[in-house]
């Protein structure tokens, strides 16, 4: 018998070792409370869903737990006396250009949990942003600019295959179009709202997006979470999505919109599926997704009925047959190395619209490594795909829609000059309704009532406000686009499409210029 073993048996059990959590030691933000201004109304406690503010009963005072602060600024915005400022926490690690605090803290998180790093928003790595290296042309002296306030300016865009040629006959002194065209989707502004599922964002945001799309004459996208019963009335401004999980996908849903988008991939997480955690599957979500309350809604990485371009054609035509060829079929892929070849396959498979989502595309939840390092920037992918489709002579057979990192109307104009028919915006629409990009959408605790379906939290953003803000944003952008076009001497967005001569690059190398197909400034 081992005496030592005997000994341990009889000794008193050791107290349970307290596990140290390194990730909880170093806060990202500092909650700075001005005690002269604070009236101890406790609104900050009520507003903070992450419990960063507390109340010390004994001392009758407010407390702060800086580690819990995600930097959403809700308390700061709601404090009636302006006593709170959220600052970057001054606690610093020794400066080191390789081991930045971001990496140190991520290692702590994984050492504490053994988990996969999760993040939201889009790629946070400062890869070169090509939009910021492209400038637009304007008329001077030799050709006059156009003022959109006094002359007509056309932003209308039609999505869908355009015929190779038009046949026109002259009958009784009237021209008659003989070629059968369409169905097409008419957009009054070449901007659409990107797929964000009901589940990822609140019903109120969806209602706001749908109404704004209707008023603006554009489209919004349901994402893959199905369509809430209250939104069927916006059908003519709706794209429904068919993703690998096929949630809430039935005949009524397929017929509800004007287009069906097959989601193959997403710029924020190319090559992986997604899942809505059981915590977010509430009663209402469960009805729309048609899955039990509290169960994980898992979307497999691929569609398991699509392993090839031929299979993709199978699904495109299954959807067309099921909806009697009344709907356009979009196919959305993440922008990856081989995007041009894949896009060519998608067009040949019969898609009406190809959607490219770039490296900087947003998300409510993606593994950080995918968000930051998988995929390529949309500017390069767009230029390469447009060029490839032109070379193959099939560019007219499908429209091209891009997304992933569009931040302002000039980005939209540059995208169209590079060859896009229209863009999708997601993140700007969320920022328009108050998002501060704190990047914690996946917790379901969004204090701004955007990326949550907690019945109490969604009250913080009503559908009316959501509609107004989103409408205003696109309204403003549309006018800016008109001004930019006018300055270039163009009176129609159609004249800008693929017109790369209107672009010049500043500070790009020859390879980049070649891929983008633009000249350097000064040339």
């Amino acid at each position, binding site marked *: 018998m081992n005496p030592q073993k005997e000994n341990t048996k009889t000794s008193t059990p050791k107290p349970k070792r307290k596990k140290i959590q390194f990730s909880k030691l170093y806060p990202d933000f500092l909650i700075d409370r001005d005690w002269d201004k604070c009236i101890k109304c406790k609104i900050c406690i009520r507003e903070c869903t992450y419990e960063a503010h507390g109340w010390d009963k004994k001392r009758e005072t407010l407390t702060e737990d800086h580690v819990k602060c995600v930097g959403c600024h809700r308390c700061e915005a709601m404090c009636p006396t302006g006593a709170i400022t959220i600052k970057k926490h001054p606690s610093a690690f020794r400066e080191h250009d390789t081991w930045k605090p971001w990496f140190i803290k991520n290692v702590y998180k994984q050492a504490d949990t053994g988990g996969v790093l999760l993040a939201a928003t889009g790629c946070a790595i400062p890869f070169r942003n090509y939009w910021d290296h492209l400038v637009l042309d304007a008329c001077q002296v030799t050709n006059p600019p156009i003022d959109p306030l006094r002359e007509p300016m056309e932003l209308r865009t039609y999505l869908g295959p355009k015929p190779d040629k038009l046949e026109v006959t002259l009958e009784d002194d009237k021209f008659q179009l003989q070629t059968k065209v369409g169905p097409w989707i008419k957009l009054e502004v070449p901007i659409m709202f990107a797929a964000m599922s009901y589940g990822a964002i609140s019903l109120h945001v969806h209602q706001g997006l749908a109404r704004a799309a209707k008023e603006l004459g554009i489209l919004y996208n349901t994402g893959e979470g199905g369509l809430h019963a209250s939104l069927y009335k916006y059908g003519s401004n709706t794209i429904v999505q068919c993703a690998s999980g096929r949630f809430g996908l039935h005949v009524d849903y*397929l017929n509800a919109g004007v287009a069906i988008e097959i989601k193959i991939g997403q710029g924020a997480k190319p090559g992986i599926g997604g899942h809505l955690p059981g915590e977010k599957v509430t009663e209402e979500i469960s009805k729309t997704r048609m899955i039990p309350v509290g169960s994980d809604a898992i979307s497999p990485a691929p569609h398991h009925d699509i392993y090839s371009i031929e299979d993709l054609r199978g699904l495109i035509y*299954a959807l067309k047959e099921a909806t009697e060829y009344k709907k356009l079929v979009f196919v959305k892929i993440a922008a990856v190395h081989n995007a041009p070849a894949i896009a060519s396959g998608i067009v040949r498979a019969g898609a009406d619209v190809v959607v490219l989502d770039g490296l900087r595309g947003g998300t409510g939840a993606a593994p950080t490594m995918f968000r930051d390092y998988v995929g390529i920037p949309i500017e390069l992918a767009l230029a390469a795909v447009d060029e490839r489709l032109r070379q193959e002579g099939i560019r007219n057979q499908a429209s091209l829609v891009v997304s992933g990192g569009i931040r302002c109307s000039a980005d939209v104009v540059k995208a169209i000059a590079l060859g896009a028919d229209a863009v999708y915006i997601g993140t700007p629409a969320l920022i328009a309704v108050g998002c501060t990009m704190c990047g914690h959408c996946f917790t379901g605790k969004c204090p701004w009532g955007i990326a949550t379906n907690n019945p109490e939290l969604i009250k913080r953003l009503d559908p009316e406000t959501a509609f107004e803000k989103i409408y205003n944003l696109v309204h403003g952008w549309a006018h800016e686009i008109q001004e930019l076009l006018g300055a270039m001497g163009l009176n129609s967005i159609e004249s800008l499409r693929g017109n790369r001569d209107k672009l010049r690059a500043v500070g790009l190398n020859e390879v980049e210029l070649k891929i983008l197909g633009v000249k350097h400034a000064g040339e």
Partner: protein
Amino acid sequence: MAFEIDAKDLHYRELNKLIRKAIAEGHKHLVLKNINGQRYIAAGVSAEVDIDIYGVPGLDLGAFMRGPRIRVHGNTQDGAGNTMDDGKIIVEGMAGDVVGYAMRGGKIFVASDVGYRVGIHMKAYMDKVPVIVIGGKAGDFLGEYMAGGVIILLGMYSRYPERPIAGIFLGTGMHGGVIYVREGVPETQLGAALQIEDLDEEDEKVLRKHLEEYCQDLGYNLEEILATKFVKIRPQTHRPYGKLYAY
């Protein structure tokens, strides 16, 4: 009276137009003759109608459909019942790959073997419980990502006596629903994180109910099928990704 369509040399687009027209005209029983690989038959059809198919239907038979009862007098190709919502597909022979992908309701009864990736991501909601019964054997990935519903695998009426009852990776990523297998399945064929159990009284009832209907539709002997023990395969957890992330 049955309304007959001769599908010889018809493209699927024309064929489906004729099917929709006949249904709109009020026909309740359609007979499709000389079917030879036409895709998407009755895809997206939302109606209570009986369709008898003679020949071999192509890809995605009854995809997205809600209501029709289809009987295939022969084999069918891949994708039968893809994302089907309600109704029934009876296949008197074999069915190809991806049968009942993401199916949310209705029934698919196959007399003999099925291919790969059958019943992937089936899901159930409230009273809608999709059911697939396979008389023969199944290929790899049966019931992968399964989120709900019932798959019953008999392995009795197979053309491949040398093969195991199911291919590998059965039930990989399964997080809901149940798979009943007659006689059981070798452990080598199973995905991870599954539980194999004996049937309880409730299971026996469910099994008998579906098999009674299956035997009625395909003329098999219920008692012969039930003479051997079944095992039940279900996921260990409904939240496979519950503890995956760090933040």
